[in-house]
């Protein structure tokens, strides 16, 4: 698998002070693959996700996305700001709390990456941004400020903002955890659409039914280690480890996705 994998993580370690949050993590994501990361809070899944685009700098191990590889630990130098920025431009990230830029309109939010990072001409960036907003069903919200949008709409704008950079991979950090239940569906729908288009994705989520539908692999983490890993349906329907079983017992594992309200 490592021959064709888009993301490859080896022996990854990370500590915050004395708290070791990632202990020797290995992870492969195939090109076009969708991996769901699940686990109780404090399990290290968000930290692992943030190590993939180096928002969190690991203490040891290596991270490769596409052709770019970084090694960490003794003797290896930390990448400089330019290298880091160029690398992050190829990975899109969606945050739990959206983190839209409140001083910019929806359109400007989506244009910001292409204009500032890619140095794209404003007119081209606007065309691109409008197309991305249309894709997430928010074309008519282009000139509104984020404060006027619902949580679900904000998160869809955040997805459009990440997509506007035309990333190789998309990382979702509990993208639906801050949403009212009735707004979860519209965001999951967009993510599902991306999966069907072949986007390589790593999704940290508590939506087990969604992970079962959309992810092809599932990783269950606890206390900084991967406890169980396998095809999503197999792990969810028939977990092998006691810890995985105990965790999954808190959720409805199957059933329909939450209904998506039509784009508004």
């Amino acid at each position, binding site marked *: 698998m490592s021959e064709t994998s888009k993301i490859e993580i080896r022996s990854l370690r990370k500590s915050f002070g004395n708290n070791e949050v990632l202990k020797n993590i290995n992870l492969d994501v195939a090109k076009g693959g969708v991996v769901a990361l699940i686990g109780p809070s404090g399990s290290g899944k968000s930290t692992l996700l943030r190590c993939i*685009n180096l*928002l969190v700098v690991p203490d040891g191990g290596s991270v490769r996305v596409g052709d770019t590889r970084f090694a960490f630990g003794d003797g290896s130098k930390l990448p400089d*700001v*330019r290298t*880091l*920025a*160029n*690398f*992050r*431009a*190829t*990975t*899109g*990230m969606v*945050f739990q*709390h959206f*983190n*839209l*830029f*409140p*001083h910019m309109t929806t359109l400007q939010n989506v244009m*910001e*990456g292409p204009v*500032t*990072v890619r140095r794209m001409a404003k007119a081209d960036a606007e065309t691109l941004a409008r197309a991305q907003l249309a894709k997430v069903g928010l074309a008519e919200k282009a000139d509104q400020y984020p*404060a006027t949008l619902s949580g679900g709409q904000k998160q869809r704008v*955040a997805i459009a*903002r*990440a997509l506007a*950079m035309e990333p190789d991979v998309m990382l979702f950090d509990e993208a639906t955890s801050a949403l009212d239940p009735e707004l979860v569906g519209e965001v999951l729908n967009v993510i599902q659409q991306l999966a069907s288009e072949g986007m390589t994705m790593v999704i940290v989520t508590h939506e087990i039914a969604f992970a079962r539908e959309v992810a092809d692999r599932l990783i269950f983490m606890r206390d900084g280690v991967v406890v169980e890993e396998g095809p999503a349906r197999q792990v969810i329907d028939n977990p092998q480890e006691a810890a995985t079983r105990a965790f999954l017992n808190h959720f409805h594992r199957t059933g329909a996705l939450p209904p998506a309200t039509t784009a508004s």
Partner: protein
Amino acid sequence: MYQWDFGILWTYRWLFLNGLGVTVGFTVVIVVCGLLFGLLGAFGTLSRFKPLRLLALTFIEAFRCTPILVQLIWFYYALPILAGVEMTPITASALALSLYGGSFYSEIIRGGIISIDRGQSEAGAALGMTPVQTMRRIVLPQAIKRMIPALMNQSIIQFKNTSLVSVLAVPDLVYQSQVAAHDSYRPLETYTAVAVAYAAILIPLTILVRRGEKRLAVSE
């Protein structure tokens, strides 16, 4: 019983106007330079490099925690002795007041910057922006909005602090009115007029600040 006679001030109208011009011009200079020092100080304290942080902190505390009157005298009289740097009274007082104001502006600007949610710079970084781009495009535009009331307040204090430059014989409004007071033997009328002149400029400004604050609150 003291007989007030404000009519006497008319004789000195050109002196007052000259002084007022110097005071206003001086304020513009020390506000602009002070903001510049403030920006440098704020970025210094937020720097990843410890020597830069220490330098910025030393600057801020040295000027924030000593009296401005002493700083003025020190810049004009002590600097030539210690460092051989000769300055005109205007340069010395402009520098001292800019640095003094800058130390306060620094803390206002720093406070504004760190008040912006970390998620904002993370979102910038995740898009591939460098720290400088994130600061310029994402953090500062939001932070400045929050700083404006405090920056305006400090600038009003700066305006009033210009009255201290008269100790170095800079011909501002207060210095000119001292001249007028000595000449006319009417210090009470003269200084009352000075107070009125300061208030006449500042009160409209404070009203503008209040309106600005309300407008900003609406757009939040």
